[in-house]
């Protein structure tokens, strides 16, 4: 058993290269296997841990799959009424400007029920971070059609596919808020491959920096999968997402702060 002994030598604290953040509690995530929510929770926890903000962070969770976030992350988290997280986060940030405040919302929450709260918070330029998980479906309630559901995409309330003549076009929230003067950093990321996860983590890290400087609303959309709602295996759903979701929701930065600030940020990173 030469290999086994060799492996025991490797498993030592000094050789540790990756372990989940200590801000994640021992409670197993309630998400379905392969869901992007878990990955996003993990990277948010990692950024907050690396930036040493655990004691100075307040998260706002709305209604949706992510409602139980307070159970999974060892942070101060406030639950808001459906869609109203940006409004609650506005109040928290204005009363406690020294705290890092973020909201974590799904597409049913942010793009349907809370559209006005989101747009107005972004338009006012509230100094908060909005993390928007877009999986094109109402995942928690059983895969109903959401405003972000793609054209022709089947859901439990559009069994023949979304007909844009009758049900309207998929809503690009991120493009919408990028037009508002209050936002400083608007980007669309995903968490389906290691490279994408690292990029998304970098985006969250940038947003933390911008919030510290008080530059305005940061809006990060994370295009995610919903294996249960889409009725696919996690691997299939990621592939479907790459082929279909990315064609309509193109990943990349939509708005970055003025060049001088962005350059300073890049230099810090290097």
């Amino acid at each position, binding site marked *: 058993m030469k*290999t086994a002994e*060799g*492996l025991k*030598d*490797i*498993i*030592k604290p000094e*050789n*540790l*290269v*990756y*372990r*989940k*953040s200590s801000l*994640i509690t021992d409670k*197993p*995530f309630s*998400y*379905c*296997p*392969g*869901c*992007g*929510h*878990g*990955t996003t929770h*993990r990277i948010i926890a990692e950024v907050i841990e690396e930036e040493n903000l655990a004691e100075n962070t307040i998260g706002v969770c709305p209604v949706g799959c992510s409602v139980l976030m307070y159970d999974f992350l060892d942070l101060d988290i406030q639950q808001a009424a459906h869609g109203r997280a940006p409004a609650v986060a506005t109040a928290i940030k204005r009363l406690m400007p020294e705290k890092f405040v973020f909201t974590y919302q799904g597409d049913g929450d942010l793009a349907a029920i809370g559209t006005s709260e989101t747009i107005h918070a972004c338009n006012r330029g509230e100094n908060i971070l909005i993390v928007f998980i877009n999986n094109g479906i109402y995942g928690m309630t059983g895969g109903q059609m959401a405003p972000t559901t793609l054209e022709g995409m089947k859901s439990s309330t559009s069994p023949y596919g979304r007909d844009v003549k009758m049900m309207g076009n998929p809503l690009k929230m991120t493009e919408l808020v990028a037009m508002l003067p209050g936002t400083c950093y608007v980007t669309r990321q995903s*968490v*389906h*491959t*290691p490279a994408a*996860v*690292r990029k998304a983590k970098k985006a969250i890290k940038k947003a933390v920096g911008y919030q510290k400087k008080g530059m305005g609303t940061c809006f990060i959309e994370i295009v995610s999968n919903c*294996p249960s709602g889409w009725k696919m*295996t*996690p*691997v299939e759903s*990621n592939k479907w997402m790459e082929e279909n979701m990315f064609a309509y929701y193109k990943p990349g930065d939509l708005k970055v702060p003025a060049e001088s600030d962005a350059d300073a940020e890049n230099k810090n990173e290097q």
Partner: protein
Amino acid sequence: MAKVKGSIVVDIEKCKGCELCVVTCPTKTIALAAEVNGKGYHYAYPANPELCIGCTNCATVCPDGVITVYRMKI
């Protein structure tokens, strides 16, 4: 050239067997077990531990954060 060797530890009871780590592993180290864990999922485990290079790809995509990665130069 220094050879890099890695090793992963999977929290079997928390694994949901989504297979995302299996498809991202560049050296085909990980596979899903034939047995199931307490929740009834076929958990991921290092099937070919000697191939692991400790690249952390599996841990980076794991939605449940069940993978811990170790790496050393030999």
